[in-house]
């Protein structure tokens, strides 16, 4: 549930990154901002972005960092790839999921345990990708603050979920055209922070980018994305 929640937030953020440069209504309420986001999400076909994920555990001196790339293509394809300090690829659509690990100089497709969990995540992502943000309102109390950044704070309504994640923050530029961070706060003070950068919208991904048998190497994907007009 928590993973789903995090990825919902990530997806919301990604779609915000992909939004157009229209200006959000001043002093908009939560519902209005969500509707604005939902409206802007409708036209985006693909999104490419890079991220840095920091796991902040209060007992540890330094955050534990990883880097990666996230790609989304309509209607329901997603690739979440960690590039450092280890290499792992998670691929999914509305029907199936696959994960690869790089070991011994080659990629190994995993025989995943509990693929239903990842499947659920992908289904939620597809829901978001279709702009059905209203679903969020069922599970979360959402508040919006505006200023230098627009921050959507989502608090789970379910007490059990809240016991694992106290809130999820999505930090967007004021015009909702880009998202800078997604922060998942835990009740004990630990958090996960994902910072996005180098986003590209509506780029054409090469064939096999989302291939669940043998995905195209991310370097080739990046070459195509960065060379796109």
């Amino acid at each position, binding site marked *: 549930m928590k993973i789903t929640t*995090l*990825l919902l937030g990530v997806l919301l953020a990604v779609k915000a990154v992909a939004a157009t440069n229209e200006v959000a209504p001043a002093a908009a309420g939560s519902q209005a901002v969500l509707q604005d986001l939902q409206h802007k999400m409708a036209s985006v076909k693909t999104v490419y972005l890079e991220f840095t994920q920091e796991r902040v555990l209060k*007992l540890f*001196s330094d955050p*534990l960092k990883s880097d990666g790339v996230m790609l989304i293509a309509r209607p329901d394809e997603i690739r979440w790839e960690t590039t450092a300090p280890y290499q*792992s690829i998670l691929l999914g659509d509305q029907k199936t999921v696959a994960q690869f690990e790089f*070991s011994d100089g080659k990629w190994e497709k*995993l025989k995943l345990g509990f693929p239903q969990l990842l499947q659920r995540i992908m289904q939620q992502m597809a829901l978001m990708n279709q702009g059905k943000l209203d679903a969020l309102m069922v599970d979360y109390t959402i508040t919006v603050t505006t200023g230098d950044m627009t921050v959507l704070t989502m608090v789970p309504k379910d007490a059990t979920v809240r016991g694992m994640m106290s809130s999820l923050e999505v930090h967007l530029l004021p015009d909702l055209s880009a998202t800078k961070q997604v922060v998942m706060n835990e009740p004990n003070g*630990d958090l996960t922070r994902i910072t996005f950068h180098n986003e590209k919208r509506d780029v054409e991904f090469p064939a096999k980018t989302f291939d669940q048998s043998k995905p195209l190497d991310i370097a080739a994907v990046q070459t195509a994305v960065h060379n796109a007009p």
Partner: protein
Amino acid sequence: MRRNFLPLLLVLLVAGCAATPPEHPFTRPANLFPPDGVLVQRVLFTARGRQFPLNGYLALNEAGGKHLVVTENFGNVMAELLIKPDGQVFVLRSSRMFPERYIRRLMAEDVKCVFGGTPKLDCPVTMPETNRFVLDRGAYKLDIRIVETKAGVQPAAMFEEPVAVKQ
């Protein structure tokens, strides 16, 4: 979403009791890890033919304390345990995937086996390469890669058992 983990757990518990000790105890090369620091690990946990990729963050102190946090792909904590220098185990966080009983009886022993200072007979570990350990218990296997080593003294609180955590 809901799934009964009991059969998996039972297999693992039985396996933990029935594993055949290797002929020679595992001896880790000296000075492979800093006495104080954090080892960031990528772990592939295999059980009943299924694979579960995990991340491990193991803090060490010179006195021999060990504090391990295990997360899944997206940072969700699956297990957290503290092993005191005298071997006492404190389970700080558990999950449906790794219940308290599993962490105490198996995970703690695996940490002692791979990262402990004293070689044990019941420690079927191989080192295919530097900073990689394969622990094969029979019914389950751990493929542990150390992907990052951060040397340095960690906060003392990390190695102190919290109040109200049972041993």
